[in-house]
Every structure is written in C-alpha cells, then in structure tokens.
C-alpha cells in the first residue's frame, strides 16, 4: 500500500504524486467518498416542494435526493432494487413517483416500492416491503443535506465541529434560502488540488483585489482536526471604485457587513461561501484522478427584498464562478498544479509555518499553514506513514 509514494517527515510538505496517482484515486473513492465522511449533496432550497428531486453522484455511486410526499428529504441509491437499473435519469425535476422503465417497478417519493407487475410468479416469500429504494444515512444542517454511505460516520454535528458557526453564517445564518441558479464546470485537476486553496494567495493571485484597493479587513482561519477549514474576514468598502465603470456590481447590500466573507471548506472538497452578497455552495464530484466537476449553486435569502435578489443575481453571476472577476484565476491554478505535479518531489507550504514536526491550529488570516491540519488528517486517513528522515 502506497509503496511508491513516501510521505515526507516535515508537516509542511506533501508528495506531488498524490495528485496524479490513479491507484491512490481509486482508494480515495472507497476510503473517503464511499467511507465514513458526510457529503453535502443538495440544499433544501434546490428541492423545496414535495416530489422535487435532484440526482447526484456520491463518489461514484448515483443517488437521488428526494423531497418525499411526506415532506421529508431522503437520499436513495439511484438503482432499482430489482435488477439494479438506474431509476431516474433527469438531473432534477418533480415526480409523483419514480418508475424504473425496465420492468415498470414503481417507487413512491418516500422510497417504498408501490408496485411491480407479475408478483404472482415471484420467488416464494417475496415481500414488497423489503424492496424500497435503498436509503442512505442522511442529516441536515442549515438546509444543507448531507449523506454518508457508512454506518461509522460520527453524527453530523460532531463531524462539522468547529466550522459550524462559519457554515451557518455562509448559509445566511439560518439556511432559509431560495435557489437562484447554477454554473457547472469541469476542472482538469485532481479533487485535492481543487480544494487546497489557501489564505496566502488571495491578495497576490487576484489582481482584481489589488486594483480595487480591496485588501479586506480583519479576519481569521480556523482549521479542524478532521480536515475542515473555516475562514472569516471583514470586507472593507472598496477604495478604488473608479477602476470599474459599474461599481454597483461590488456593492455590499445585505445585512452582514461585519463579516463580509465567510468560507467553510468541508472535508473532503465542498466549499460553502458567502462573499459580499453572494451565497454559494460548490458541490464537487471527483470524476477521475485528473478531473473534478463542480456545480456552483447560488442562493438568495427568503427575507430578501426584490431589489436585493436582483443585486445578488448580478453579483453572483459575475464575481465568484468559473469566469468570475476574482475567481477565474483560481480555476487556472487548479489546472497548473495538476500539470506541475507530474514532476518528482514534494510541494511545500511556507507562509505561517512555525514548526515542521507537528501541526497546529492557531493560524493567521493570510497564512497557508491553515491547510496543514487537513493534509495531516488526509495522510493518516489514507494510511500513509511519515518518513523517518527529513
């Protein structure tokens, strides 16, 4: 196991090979994506009505997130309990029931098998009650619907732990949201490079921040021992508004000016962010070792005025997505990390690194050392042993 990849002794180094190794990717799917972690699959606002559903992948497993006829949201494997056929092919919609077209087995939106033709000639002891869609463990936080394929995953609140407050803040405080729409894209990058952005890069890579005289106010980073990372920072008003012909795009209109930016990065690779007036959940799927698919879902708050909703739509569309004013460059970097990672050796973290023998949790706003607890957690989860030699 991991015979060819040696994890370095210093905690601020990671082997570049972990981004490109196809066998490791397969183990990650089993250990992390099909394993004892919670994975956000939808926000309640995407499927607000009874019968609404959304299909997703959990790792490689197709699932249906369904708002049942009883108003409860459940997550099912998207596979008929008869011959395993994919039940639902649409990415979203509203159904009175889910029907597998192969032999017309019909499932209620609560998962129960409602009907299947020809039961008279089924095997002895066949009981419809045992053939409902297979349900995954599901839990909800501020409207965000999580599922896990493992019985060993700790309760959701324990798992979220120290980033709970940042996550709630990013989801409008109480999670009472309304869906505004999606931007969907694939990045030519391993999922770990996609989700490894740091506090050091923001003012350097994103020239837009600098040109706008927009360095941000006081902020903090809070890593957790199980691989999450919460960022919070105040956003000062933009100094150099004249740089834009239409500065109204970057107005801050909602009622959260104290902390303009809140980012919850949940292990393994979901980002939930509230930046200016943008409320954004980035649902990610590790498609292959070198491809990560991201669905940027944008929201308004149910209490917003019509004017604020319009503002959120134009700001969300232009600011933080796959061609956003201060995010397009991130997408370019994901790809370049991937290409560069085919070279030998380790990638290093330097900014804010106080020691190299163990990880710590006291991190400043623009440090990149906030990523190290996650890497330490990942290496242990995947069974890597640190090298004895520096």
């Amino acid at each position, binding site marked *: 196991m991991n015979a060819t990849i040696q994890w370095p002794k210093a905690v601020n180094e990671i082997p570049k090979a972990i981004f490109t190794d196809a066998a490791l990717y397969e183990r990650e799917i089993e250990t992390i994506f099909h394993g004892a972690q919670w994975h956000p699959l939808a926000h309640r606002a995407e499927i607000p009505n009874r019968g609404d559903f959304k299909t997703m992948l959990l790792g490689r497993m197709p699932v249906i997130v369904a708002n049942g006829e009883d108003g409860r949201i459940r997550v099912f494997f998207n596979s008929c309990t008869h011959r395993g056929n994919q039940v639902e092919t649409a*990415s*979203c919609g509203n159904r009175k029931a889910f029907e597998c077209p192969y032999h017309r087995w019909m499932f209620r939106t609560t998962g129960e098998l409602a009907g299947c033709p020809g039961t008279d000639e089924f095997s002895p002891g066949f009981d419809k009650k045992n053939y409902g869609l297979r349900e995954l463990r599901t839990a909800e936080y501020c409207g965000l619907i999580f599922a896990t394929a493992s019985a060993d995953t700790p309760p959701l609140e324990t798992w979220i732990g120290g980033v709970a407050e940042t996550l709630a803040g990013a989801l409008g405080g109480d999670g009472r949201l309304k*869906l*505004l*729409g*999606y*931007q*969907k*894209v*694939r*990045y*030519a990058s391993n999922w770990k490079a996609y989700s490894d952005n740091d506090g050091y890069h923001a003012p350097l*890579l994103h*020239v*837009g921040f600098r*040109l706008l005289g927009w360095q941000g106010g006081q902020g903090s980073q809070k890593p957790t021992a199980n691989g999450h990372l919460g960022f919070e920072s105040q956003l000062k008003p933009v100094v150099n508004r004249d*740089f*834009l*012909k*239409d500065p109204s*795009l970057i107005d801050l209109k909602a009622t959260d000016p104290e902390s303009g930016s809140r980012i919850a990065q949940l292990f393994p690779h979901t980002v939930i962010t509230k930046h200016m007036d943008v409320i954004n959940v980035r649902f990610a799927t590790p498609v292959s070792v070198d491809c990560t*698919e991201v669905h940027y879902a*944008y929201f308004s708050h149910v209490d917003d005025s019509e004017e604020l909703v319009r503002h959120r*739509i*134009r700001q*969300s*569309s*232009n600011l933080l*997505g*796959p*061609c956003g*004013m201060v995010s*397009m*460059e991130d*997408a*370019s970097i994901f*790809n*370049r990390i991937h290409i560069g990672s085919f070279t030998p050796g380790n990638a290093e973290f330097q900014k804010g690194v106080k020691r190299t023998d163990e990880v710590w949790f006291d991190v400043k706003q623009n440090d990149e050392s906030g990523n190290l607890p996650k890497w330490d957690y990942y290496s242990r989860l995947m069974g890597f042993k640190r090298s004895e030699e520096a």
Partner: protein
Amino acid sequence: MLKLDEASLVLVDNLQRRYIEALDRRDMELWLDCFTQDAASSYFCISAENVERGLDIALMYDDCRARLIDRVTFITKVWAGTFQPYRMRHLVQRIGTPTLEHGKLNVVSNFSIATTPKGGGSSLLAVGYYEDTVALDRGEPRFLCKRAVYDTTVLPRYIVYPF
C-alpha cells in the same frame, strides 16, 4: 431603420461575422464595438438548464454597457498572465424567422465553439443559440442585446472569453 428585408438581414449577418471574428481573434475592443453605445446595451451568457428552470444566474451577466466595458478591462488587464490562452473557432448559423420591433431586428442563431489549447488537440467548448436584438448605431447594425444560451450543461473548462 432596419427592416424585415434581405438587405437588412445581410447587414445583420455581417455583424454576426464581425462578432465571431472578434472573439476568434480574442480582440475584446472589437468585441465591444459590436454593441451599441446605448447605456442599456447588454450581453448575457447563460445555461439552457437555468433558462428552462426559470433561474436567472448566468455565467456572464452584463446588463448595461458599463458592465461590457468592465468585462473587457478584466480580460485584457486584470487577468492578463493568469490564464492559459486558448484558441476559439465559432461557427454560427442564423435560424428561425427574424422579427421587427420598433426598427430593431430580433434574430436567433445557433452557435458552436471549438477550442484548442496551446499545444493541444481541438474539442468542443460549447454549443447553443444566440438571441440577439440588433439596432442601428453610428450608421451600422450593432447588438443592443446579445444573449448566448448554451446547451453544454457542464462546461469542459474555466471560461475567460464570452461566447
């Protein structure tokens, strides 16, 4: 005044050719010059999936001329040197029946954009349709509104240039 006649449609097709030539050359000033100087001049690039669900989030949402200018500034100045350049080749075909409204022509065209990264093979970047409102501006037809609706549910890469 634009009319519903062959001569006007030839002018509109010329505008469409200028537009895709500007993008294929990645000449953003030329791209901007395809829009009228009206303050309400606009460009939207939005997924068909959002349109079909009645969702307003777009990939690019430039609802006024000032936003068009800001997009050019970001592509040519702010992002310079941070993205890998990619070549584009647009193919456009006007479809349907144009309509005339207060001297402006509404036309719909299919588009297909192939992309070629430096040193790489070609692939499809996006396909979809343009919904355009064309008006006379400085003696020539220009877009008062251009809306690119793309079928490509999941885009194959990050996007720098408009469709």
